[in-house]
């Protein structure tokens, strides 16, 4: 059993859970179990080719899986997988595209 930590922006796609316990021998298997349970997460985490999106990092404990064996990285019981997306919040005004007004048009 590995613990998967779900970050705030993605909790809406995981029935608001902040973490889940999942089975899997590798990072890929655990993530598959995760998106099987919450299908809406799949689109958020993976691109059309099934690759992890480049603004989402997955850490096994404190190490980025890109520097381990990526999807094939073995997961042991008690390990923690963290999903860490890039977030940009901080201020309005120094922004190239402003804040609420612009994002309203973008979204």
């Amino acid at each position, binding site marked *: 059993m590995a613990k998967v930590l779900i*970050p*705030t*922006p993605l909790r*809406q*796609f995981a029935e608001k859970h*902040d973490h889940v316990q999942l089975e899997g021998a590798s990072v890929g298997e655990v993530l598959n179990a995760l998106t099987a349970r919450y299908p*809406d997460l799949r689109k*958020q985490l993976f691109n059309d080719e099934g690759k992890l*999106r*480049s*603004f989402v*990092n997955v*850490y096994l404990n*404190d*190490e*980025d899986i890109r*520097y381990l064996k990526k999807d094939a990285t073995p997961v042991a019981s008690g390990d923690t997988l*963290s999903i*860490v*997306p*890039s*977030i*940009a*919040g*901080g*201020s*309005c*005004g*120094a*922004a*190239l*595209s*402003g*804040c*609420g*007004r*612009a*994002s*309203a*048009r*973008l*979204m």
Partner: protein
Amino acid sequence: MTTVAAPVELSKDEILRYSRHLILPEVGMEGQLKLKQAKILMVGAGGLGAPLGLYLAASGIGRIGIVDFDVVDFTNLQRQVIHGTKDVGRKKLDSAAETMQDINPYLRIDKYEVALSSENALDIIKDYDMVIDGTDNFPTRYLVNDACVILKKPNVYGSIFRFEGQATVYGYPGGSVDGKQYAQGPCYRCSYPEPPPPGLVPSCAEGGVLGILPGIIGLVQATEAVKLILGAGEPLIGRLMLYDALAMRFREMKVRRNPECPVCGDHPSIKELIDYHQFCGVPNPKEAQPEVAVKPGFESATEIDAIALKAKLDRGDKFQFIDVREPHEWQIARIPGATLIPLNDVPKRIGELNPEAETVVHCKMGGRSAKAADFLRSQGFKHVKNMIGGILAWSDKVDPSVPKY
């Protein structure tokens, strides 16, 4: 980092002011003089910039540049503690500078009332020892990152969302801190080679943020800036600090420099600033059509403004009127006659709607409802109109008694 050129010393008043630093062996007179000679550029005087600006001013930093072109509004005051109620309507730049100057008259403040851009970033940043990034959008994040890497300036990074924050030092050019040698550190692109597609992650205005959160993250940034200047302790280089306010937990992830990174890697392909709007897939506000002031009463096959919607409701037209905000927003304010179906519930509740009937969707500002409208059209709905400007426009143009948030 700072070069000791002209002899700098502290006046008697400054010695008194900084006495609690001076008696700390890790700072002392030498450290305080380093702070006095330091030049920091704050990008943004908002959520993160507010707390860190206050403390950096107080700490005795000699020169602080502030880049900001926004104006203080009431919704800022819940977290942007450098501005007060009396400052609403003023430039954040003026309000922040005034507060910081009041805390410390020895501080030199340079104000840049501009949007940081590919045209001006290198010119502005080059005069400073480091940048503290407190912006709110991906184009500026990547711009600050690339400019810092090109100029070999550390970029003290922080970002926040709802109850969570991240902080690290990107773009450390390599050097010695507290007697320990640090290699060139990773940059933002090493962590995140590309931004999310626009709209995937809501902004603070749509997603909300705990007012105290930027205080914590901004002060982590301020702490790291001061440590880098002093050359004290263990800098947050190669470590991404994650903070969860609800769990009250700090965690730390390793961030490595990617030798293949297009900006800071061994063979960089990006050696000058690029078009960051294009990179992030968002329209450049400078090139965008000036916001066409929609004629009051505007209605087309796909859009409707607040005035036209009011007329439609008053006439008693038959249409499906859907509010796609969240239930907690519905509790704050609502437009009479709307039915609440939160955006994420639209797919599973689509059976409640008639695809043949005219449908108007609204949200807070018009962004989420545009998504809902696109989705409904993709599901065969024939007459879907997005309400321009959402409930904020309704409050502005139709019923001021509806609170804005």
